[in-house]
């Protein structure tokens, strides 16, 4: 929200920050030196913010080619005694997991924090994975803030904890924290000389049973720290018989639910910031008095399972307790327990059911039949043109070609805006591995051509091993590389194919064509805005054998128009003959660009000039050539 707030050297001042900015500020207050990340919502603004102020605070910030590389880079800085921060969404933690599981054994030197963004409700992700379960497997301690202020404070605490334990600490932030706003009380930013050094006597090695024992000792030390962690908070009453155990913003949803039901003060709320390992003594102290316990947490029943296991181990001390949560089915939104994001409404309704009180919310009746609004590729998006060309080429080819998807804006090709073309969608680089396998199936009678799409940023992130495998084994597949020159979906971060780094410094750019040449993979080049030519190229390539690549290159439409006067596109009402045309309203009904609308009054096509980004592709495709493009250059 305010980069000035992040930089403000005024301890004690209260400034408005987003959650991501608060984490950035916390890292500054911890004296972070090295920051590495691959962009992912909801965390992309943490490295983005730190990159903008890197010079002022003498930081190194990079957009790494993927999250595993980012974590390795940050670990290297930690091994050399610096404080380092690796930032990723939970999907990225999956990518980094192999290294992470070894890193938790080898440990680290300088304080190292791994910020992981979880996205309950999948607002900007393809799944709502819960990183706490992964971190438990990895043996990483996990802290979770419930407010923007706490996001700042816990970041600092996580660095200190990591350095004292000698193991990285995970800061789990859900989207509501990352993208939330709050007033943050600032602390001090240290200004010390930092010197990197990795003495030869220091060995960071993840090998041997003894290291495993040490790893468990570190976790036990983290559990002792958690017992006295001042961020774990309990609210009245004393010795509550009824208790809510919660973490993150869910704690607020529970408190507000209780308040709405008039139950505040009679039911205790234990909010845990140290979500792994759990503070056993603190929990047992409360469980001893409790006869009914409710869990409020996003997404999986993580606290629930682990607290119930603790209670089972200490059954003779804690006595009989009724547990209510996702396992029992009591805490559930409209899609069922453990599915979707919690909110105050769900908590109020769940608590009312559990404690047998009536709940009626203020309501305006109706609203069931409103038309839904699907996601759409932006007006002018080159991916729409690419998808149209692929769709047309596959139809002309006539062999029911298979299109395998990948992660990026074009993953919207699973829906209307991309003509429902994608048949698979899994993870970064997943499409190319699938194509590599599918490309071997002609020996088993597969007669359909195999095509996969992926983006330029994904190409560097996760596609290379799959592509190399495909080429090496002569898989029959066409890889269409949609090169829009940026990591568009997360806010236009640079990648190794770009000319500048995160710090705005000139990069040693890695050219796509050079890489393909080096690997000996044949490739063609096209411009998606030139739809007809693109269709012809794809049709030709579909006839060829082996692994081949088509690069469709066109800058992201949002970047292309930034700060420029857009081309004006409009419909010539003389040339458009409306429904008499027989085109079935191609532009507005078929091409699916939100800027192509229909003028009901005049029965003609129309361009919403506010939305239109002036690509002119619809003008080329209009059978009556009724759409006019006035080019500004």
């Amino acid at each position, binding site marked *: 929200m305010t980069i000035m707030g992040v930089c403000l050297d005024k301890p004690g001042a209260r400034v408005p920050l987003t959650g991501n900015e608060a984490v950035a500020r916390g890292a500054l207050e911890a004296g972070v030196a090295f920051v590495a990340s691959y962009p992912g919502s909801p965390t992309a603004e943490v490295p983005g913010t730190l990159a903008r102020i890197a010079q002022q605070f003498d930081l190194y910030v990079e957009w790494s080619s993927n999250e595993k590389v980012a974590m390795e880079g940050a670990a290297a800085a930690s091994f050399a005694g610096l404080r380092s921060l690796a930032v990723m969404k939970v999907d990225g933690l999956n990518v980094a997991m192999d290294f992470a599981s070894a890193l938790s054994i080898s440990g680290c030197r300088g304080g190292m924090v791994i910020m992981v963004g979880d996205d309950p*409700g999948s607002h900007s992700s393809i799944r709502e994975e819960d990183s706490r379960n992964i971190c438990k497997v990895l043996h990483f301690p996990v802290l979770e803030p419930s407010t923007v202020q706490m996001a700042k404070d816990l970041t600092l605490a996580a660095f200190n904890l990591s350095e004292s334990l000698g193991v990285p600490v995970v800061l789990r932030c859900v989207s509501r924290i990352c993208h939330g706003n709050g*007033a943050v009380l600032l602390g001090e930013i240290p200004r010390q000389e930092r010197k990197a050094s990795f003495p030869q006597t220091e060995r960071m090695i993840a090998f041997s049973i003894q290291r495993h024992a040490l790893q468990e000792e570190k976790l036990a030390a983290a559990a002792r720290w958690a017992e006295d962690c001042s961020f774990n908070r309990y609210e009245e009453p004393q010795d509550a018989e009824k208790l809510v155990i919660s973490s993150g*913003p869910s704690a607020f949803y529970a408190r*507000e*639910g209780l308040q709405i039901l008039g139950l505040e003060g009679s039911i205790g709320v234990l909010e845990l910031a140290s979500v792994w390992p759990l503070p056993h003594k603190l929990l047992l102290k409360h469980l001893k008095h409790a006869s009914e316990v409710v869990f409020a947490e996003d997404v999986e029943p993580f606290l629930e399972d682990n607290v119930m296991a603790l209670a089972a181990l200490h059954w003779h001390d804690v006595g009989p307790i009724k547990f209510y949560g996702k396992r029992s089915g009591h805490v559930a939104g409209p899609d069922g327990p453990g599915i979707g994001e919690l909110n105050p409404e769900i908590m109020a309704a769940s608590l009312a059911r559990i404690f047998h009180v009536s709940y009626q*919310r203020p*309501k305006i009746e109706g609203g069931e039949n409103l038309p839904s609004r699907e996601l759409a590729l932006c007006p002018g998006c080159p991916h729409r043109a690419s998808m149209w060309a692929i769709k047309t080429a596959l139809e002309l080819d006539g062999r029911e070609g298979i299109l395998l998807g990948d992660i990026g804006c074009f993953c919207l090709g699973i829906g209307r805006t991309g003509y429902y073309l994608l048949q698979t969608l899994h993870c970064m680089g997943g499409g190319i591995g699938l194509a590599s396998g599918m490309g071997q199936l002609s020996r088993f009678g597969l007669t359909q051509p195999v095509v996969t799409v992926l983006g330029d940023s994904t190409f560097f992130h996760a596609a290379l091993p799959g592509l190399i495998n495909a080429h090496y084994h002569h898989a029959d597949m066409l890889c269409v590389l949609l090169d829009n020159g940026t990591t568009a979906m997360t806010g236009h971060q640079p990648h190794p194919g770009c000319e500048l780094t995160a710090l705005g410094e000139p990069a040693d750019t890695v050219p796509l064509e050079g890489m393909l040449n080096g690997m000996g993979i044949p490739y063609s080049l096209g411009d998606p805005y030139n739809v007809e030519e693109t269709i012809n190229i794809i049709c030709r390539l579909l006839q060829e054998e082996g692994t081949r690549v088509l690069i469709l290159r066109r800058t992201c439409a949002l970047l292309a128009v930034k700060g420029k006067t857009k081309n004006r596109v409009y419909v010539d009402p003389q040339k458009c003959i409306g429904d008499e045309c027989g085109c079935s309203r191609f532009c507005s009904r078929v091409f699916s660009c939100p800027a192509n609308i229909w003028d009901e009054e005049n029965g003609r096509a129309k361009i919403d000039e506010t939305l239109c980004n002036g690509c002119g592709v619809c003008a080329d495709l209009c059978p009556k050539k009724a759409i006019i493009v006035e080019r500004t250059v």
Partner: protein
Amino acid sequence: MFQEPINIVITGVGGQGNVLAAQVIAVSAVEAGYLVSSGETSGLAQRGGPVMTHVRVFCRQNYGPLVPHGRATVVIGFEPLETMRVLFDYGNRGTVVISNDRPSYPLGCLQCEDSYPEVSLIKDGIKNMVQQSFFIPASELAAQAGTSLAANMVMTGCLAGTGLLPFGKEFFRSTIDKLFPNKLKELNLKAFELGFDQVFQQVV
């Protein structure tokens, strides 16, 4: 003293600057000495999908980022259909509604599988649903200020004009001045003032 928290729900379509409007409101509130908590539902950060942001303003106790259903103090809609949609979930009879009157059509409506309700019907419906509502030609006012993209600041001005918030428009002005790059300051301030006047005149 105001009844806390003030629950503001902002809704619209991706690309309309909904999140930025929420930030201007949140920053202004903090600068005016209040506490805020906000949450954003941004879809896939793409244009075309619905985007909703909650901003809660308070001073005595802390609140979470999400407004409970049925408890919006004010709904600010950048798009009439989305205003309607959010009102059913978050509104009550006393909710104040400020809505842009310019539709942005979902793909399903453009493809004639769904039909977009007449804007006049949406207006009448909302007038029957709540006690106070304002329909604003925000995109046109923004175009007057220099670009229709500034409709978000017109709508922010409208909120300031209702007098629902416990702080004055000077805090909004200084926030806009602080957040926007130099060449866009004047334009956005003008858009804000145009929105402010629209509602302020009707309220006074």
